[in-house]
């Protein structure tokens, strides 16, 4: 029995035989002559193009244009004249078409791999994938990779076209020994909800593993090869429970979130990138409570432009339709550092130069973001929240910048929702204590429980020596939450909770009792939270127990 740790692509359990996928290697062999081999290539290319068209249509209908587009690009690669020329040149040495295609593909792949650009380097895989498809079309006798029984696919990486070609009912799970969580095939895997992990560094993919029994625990991101019968029994039970629970939770899809005594609350989702919006929709979130815009900045190598940001925001806002999307403005500094911001080293980063403080010092960065947000606001139900607020002067600054952003867009003739809601995060004791003053000035509150706890108790939440003392259920924290909630409601504005605490079993009755309007959690917890809430009777909760 041996086990390998990786990174989760999509949660779940799989128990079954491993099916090892490896790309085809072709040995150098003599062909039937240049013209005959070229004719074989042309025929194989036609078949490949027809298969790519099929993959395109299938992906388009199942997952949409964005994911399907890659197959259209692969088709162009298969048809490419430079590729054809390179194959002809190889065939001049009287080799087989298989060998010529593989060699020409490898040369082109090498060209991409040597480019001084991370994105282009990755395209080498596309070229190899196209060449491999033509080679397998040439090898009639070798049908390529297929699954004869339900299996866990084990591969270094899997071309997305291979994944789409396979019978999905036969795929129990996938282990991408290399791969990455954001590769095209990983995104497809997630959308198809296949339990899967990637980046299992200790695992070497060898053909002898084929047919070996294994357990894929995509909750703990672990692959266990050759488990003993005891482990197997315990995992069969776990898998059964997980699936029963999942099926049970499906009944909560499309339903409003109600407590036992009929109080309504909304469950929103926290997402960190625009593609995660799919997960939110699949789990029936009632909105997005926290879209961390900093991921756009973290992924870029220089300040992202207004257009670039706008595209990300628009994608999420459009996808959610009428449902509300709350985007948090830039929240960097402290533990989130970005090179091109060139932030100074700090003695005490958690209490230092971060979030709105950076925006105030560099208003031009904030303005670009606000303009991008306003532009996206005309595509759906967008609200914006600003983190780390401590004083009314910051709110005044935000309003002035928002007015300037609207003016600029108007001058450029662009459309936007002039009434876009602007709220603040209540994550400092200062904001909570003065929440009556803030409630009169902003459109909504959102409580960030992680920072609010850390600042209230003066305990660094990432210090391992203090983790046992870090108690976010501390009465001081709960009193601040209660205070902010009452002040919000006194001024007729909604309040949400978007920190980890939003799904805390012990605190849930309290949050519901004091009338928090919205709880925002990771997509995977949406339905279980809705189920949990349905069992809570707020008329039997005494909030004094918590304060």
């Amino acid at each position, binding site marked *: 029995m041996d086990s390998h740790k990786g990174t989760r692509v999509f949660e779940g359990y799989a128990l079954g035989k491993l099916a090892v996928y490896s790309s085809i290697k072709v040995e150098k062999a003599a062909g039937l002559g240049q013209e005959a081999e070229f004719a074989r290539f042309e025929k194989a290319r036609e078949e490949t193009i027809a298969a790519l068209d099929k993959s395109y249509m299938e992906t388009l209908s199942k997952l949409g244009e964005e994911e399907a587009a890659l197959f259209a690009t692969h088709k*162009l690669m298969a048809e490419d*004249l430079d590729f054809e020329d390179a194959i002809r040149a190889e065939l001049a040495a009287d080799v087989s078409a298989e060998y010529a295609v593989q060699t020409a593909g490898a040369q082109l792949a090498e060209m991409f791999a040597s480019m001084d650009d991370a994105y282009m380097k990755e395209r080498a895989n596309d070229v190899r994938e196209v060449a491999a498809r033509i080679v397998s079309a040439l090898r009639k006798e070798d049908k390529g990779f297929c699954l004869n029984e339900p299996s866990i696919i084990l591969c270094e990486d899997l071309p997305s076209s291979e994944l789409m070609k396979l019978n999905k009912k036969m795929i129990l799970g996938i282990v991408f020994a290399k791969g990455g969580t954001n590769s095209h095939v990983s995104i497809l895997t997630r959308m198809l909800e296949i339990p899967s992990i990637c980046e299992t560094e200790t695992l070497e993919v060898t053909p002898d593993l084929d047919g070996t029994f294994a357990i894929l625990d995509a909750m703990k991101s672990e692959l266990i090869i050759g488990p003993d019968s005891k482990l197997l029994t315990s995992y069969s039970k776990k898998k059964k429970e997980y699936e029963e629970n999942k099926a049970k939770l499906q009944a909560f899809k499309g339903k409003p979130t109600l407590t036992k005594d009929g109080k309504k609350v909304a469950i929103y989702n926290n997402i960190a990138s625009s593609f995660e919006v799919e997960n939110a929709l699949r789990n029936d979130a009632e909105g997005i409570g926290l879209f961390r815009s900093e991921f756009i900045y973290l992924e870029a190598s220089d300040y992202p432009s207004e257009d670039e940001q706008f595209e990300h925001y628009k994608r999420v806002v459009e996808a959610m339709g009428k449902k509300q999307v709350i985007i948090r403005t830039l929240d960097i500094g402290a533990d989130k550092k970005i090179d091109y911001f060139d932030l100074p080293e700090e003695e005490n980063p958690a209490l230092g130069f971060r979030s709105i403080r950076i925006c105030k010092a560099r208003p031009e960065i904030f303005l670009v973001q606000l303009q991008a947000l306003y532009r996206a606001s005309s595509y759906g139900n967008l609200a914006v929240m600003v983190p780390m607020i401590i004083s009314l002067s910051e709110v005044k600054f935000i309003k002035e910048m928002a007015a300037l952003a609207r003016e600029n867009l108007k001058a450029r003739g662009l459309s936007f929702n002039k009434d876009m809601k602007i709220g603040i995060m209540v994550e400092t004791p200062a904001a909570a204590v003065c929440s009556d003053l803030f409630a009169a000035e902003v459109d909504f509150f959102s409580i960030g429980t992680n920072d609010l706890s850390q600042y209230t108790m003066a305990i660094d939440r990432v210090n391992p020596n203090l983790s046992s003392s870090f108690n976010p259920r501390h009465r001081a924290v709960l009193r601040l939450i209660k205070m902010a909630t009452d002040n919000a409601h006194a001024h007729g504005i909604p309040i949400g909770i978007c920190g980890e605490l939003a799904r805390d079993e012990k605190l849930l009755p309290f949050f519901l009792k004091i009338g928090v309007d919205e709880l925002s959690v990771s997509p995977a917890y949406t339905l279980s939270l809705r189920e949990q809430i349905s069992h809570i009777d707020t008329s039997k909760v005494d909030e004094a127990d918590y304060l």
Partner: protein
Amino acid sequence: MKSFTYVITDKEGIHARPAGIVVAEAKKYASAITIENKGKKADLKRIFAVMSLCVKNGEEVKIVAEGADEEAAAAGVEKVLKENL
């Protein structure tokens, strides 16, 4: 001959997917169409050639169409560039 210039605004530059869309558009026309960037020129109907130019965000490309349907070709290519890059 019909030509125009365009500045790429996509963060990734001309990457695989939009390159595919532009090449597919170019292939619809009989005219010879080229793309030029940083002094290098490529046939816009050849995807590997286009991708190997490695055009980055903010860079300018020059498109030249020459042939019977050059007007339509230039207009068509310009439209997809604007929509996708």
